[in-house]
């Protein structure tokens, strides 16, 4: 990787400090502290309900935080959203919506086009390039409901690529995707990583998590462990993440939630 491709500032791409997120007074995430290194492909794993999606939504300001702050590149996320890319869960939108694949990918450019302006020829060229990268260019004029699950996921990925960000959040990009698409996506992410981008991916398959990611965040309401995959992917830590060790914490959380109602 060449140095000039790296983000220029020295500040870490993502710094989370004492982040607590609650849903109806019940904490989902509790006191998260995290400093993500630049140029790494980071997997977020943990059991169902561990708050994986909540974490990345809270990082981007899509959910209100009860306490704590999130900085991207040394500034509050709200101020550096131009450098943040997002691949939401596939079910988060209505795929019967009357738009074409090209329209969706162009949406990735909206942040750069500016309010009330039309996409330029350059934006369209860029969008086509991103579609090419995910091998979806032949589908550019299709209406999005005519796509398979894997194709829909690749359209979302192309849209995120069109954002040209330095920090990416991806919410389960591998659900409902066939094996071929999955390996195509992961090599694309690895290519992005080698260009100095930082990518956080919510993932729910442990065996592949080990091979896909440089770093792992083991999450279960709290950060159980965060570090290079070979150091973090240990039976003890995984047991701690997936096992029943945190039952006391969740019971307290339940009680707090009940009292607050």
């Amino acid at each position, binding site marked *: 990787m060449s140095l000039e491709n790296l983000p220029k500032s020295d500040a870490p791409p993502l710094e989370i400090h004492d982040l607590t997120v609650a849903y109806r007074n019940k904490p989902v995430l509790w006191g998260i502290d995290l400093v993500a290194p630049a140029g790494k492909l980071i997997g977020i794993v943990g059991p169902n309900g561990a708050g994986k999606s909540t974490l990345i939504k809270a990082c981007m300001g899509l959910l209100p935080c009860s306490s704590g702050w999130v900085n991207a590149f040394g500034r509050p996320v709200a101020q550096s959203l131009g450098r943040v890319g997002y691949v939401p869960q596939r079910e988060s939108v209505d795929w019967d*919506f*009357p738009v074409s694949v090209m329209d969706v990918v162009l*949406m990735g450019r909206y942040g750069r086009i500016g309010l009330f302006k039309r996409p330029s020829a350059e934006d369209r060229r860029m969008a086509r390039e991103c579609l090419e990268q995910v091998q979806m260019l032949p589908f550019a004029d299709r209406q999005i409901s005519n796509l398979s699950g894997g194709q829909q996921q690749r359209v979302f990925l192309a849209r995120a690529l069109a954002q040209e960000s330095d920090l990416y959040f991806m919410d389960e990009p591998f659900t409902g995707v066939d094996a071929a698409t999955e390996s195509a996506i992961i090599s694309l992410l690895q290519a992005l990583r080698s260009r100095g981008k930082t990518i956080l991916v919510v993932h729910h398959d442990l065996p592949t998590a080990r091979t896909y990611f440089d770093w792992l965040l083991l999450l279960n309401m709290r950060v159980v462990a965060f570090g290079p995959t070979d150091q973090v992917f240990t039976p003890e830590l995984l047991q701690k993440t997936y096992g029943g060790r945190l039952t006391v914490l969740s019971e307290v959380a339940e009680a707090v939630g009940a009292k607050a109602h």
Partner: protein
Amino acid sequence: MRAIPRGETDGMDWRRARVGSWLRLIVVGCVLLVVSAFTAQAAKIGDLTQTRWTEQAWRFVTLSDPVVRYACLGTVLLGISCGLLGSFLVVRRMALMGDALSHAVLPGVALGFLWNLEKDPLAIFIGALVAGLAGSATVSILTRTTRLKEDTALGMVLASFFGLGLCLMSMFQRLPTGNKSGIETFLFGQAAALGPGDIQVMGTVTLVVVVLLFLGYKEFLLVSFDPGFARVLALPTVWFERLLVMLLAFSVVAALQAVGVVLVSAMLIIPAATASLLTDRFHRVLVWSSCIGMLSGLSGAFLSFLGTRLPTGPFMVLSASGFFAVALLFAPRQGIVPRWYRQRSQRVRIERENTLKAIYQVLEANGFSGETVSVEALARRRRVAPVAVEAEIRSLVAAEFATASAVDVALTPSGWQRACAIVRNHRLWELYLTHAAQIAPDHVHDDAEKIEHVLGEATVRELERRLPRIDTDPHGRPIPSLPVASADGRIGVGRQDDRPRGYGGRS
């Protein structure tokens, strides 16, 4: 633990739609009861016959009457603005929102009247706007602070605001002073009651709607399609949402006098629903929807004008439903008739191909010794009565695939080519299934019967590439290659040497 409740949405749309239609029925019933009291003198059957309808139609078409001019202008304007904003409601699955908003404006209309006891377009506009926005604010407060779902909140707001409006209006009817004429036009609409002041309000609203949607098309599109992503792009999502509700309230209120409170939501939803049958791109939905809205408005005004001052709202909605029915039947891709026609022509094609195949098989059984096949042999092969086979042969002759006499049939060059292609498709597919998928030879025939009609050129080439030898099928019969029609009209020789030679069609 869920951060955002998901998964309820799918079922809810059905429930919402059902609740919406029931509510509408009940509301319309109540309104009919209440209003029949003070509109009893308006529409007597006798009025219909007093003026000849041709005369009325002529007055309408020539636009000679200023009343007609205002009515036309007003309905066109309302058609555009309702069509545009209705498209957003339909694609966002928020159809009931339009219903609630339009019913919630009624108390505002009554208060606007009360302002100076006159029909002052501006006062009514402001009153209705305030009431509409209060209604939508109530919905959002209810959904945010309680566990009630949005459809319940919408239903409650719709009914209670509408009830309040009806109370105010009937109280107002009893007041001794003031010009009461025209208040009932707000319930069912009366385009002929539009004056220059109303047109000014409607014109302004439509202009604002068109300009803002044109400028902010891409933002409104993104906020409607994926609000989460819009927020990540640092778009002021909340403000665009509010603007959209604002514009919606504007156009509902502007349309009130021509369509009426009860049915204005239909002018939001039906043109947009029609448009989404016609196209699957949002900008085209917007254009189609406003055009259909315009046409329904105009024809509604026209129909009600024929019957002298019948309420316009129902006629507009009926015209819009008429357009919807036409689209449902004839829309190029999704319409019932084009779909039926496509299925039928496919059935006819498959039928012909099966006959061609049978002729080929009879010829093959005879060792390709003759050029003609007797009707009787073909009927035996097809396992149908000779009468049915004669009909099939007539169909082939009509498509110029065959020439026929009373007792036998012979293939033309194009018929021969098609027959070879079908038999080849069938046998190649059988070969592929037994070879590549290891399916037993006695299991492949039925599948090939279906596949032979749909195999495309590219797939056939692919099969040829993948199979090591393509001379005989799994049952040991030769696979014909595709004959090339040569210049003298005779059938040329394909690549394989063991194919039947020397077979010429009649020219």
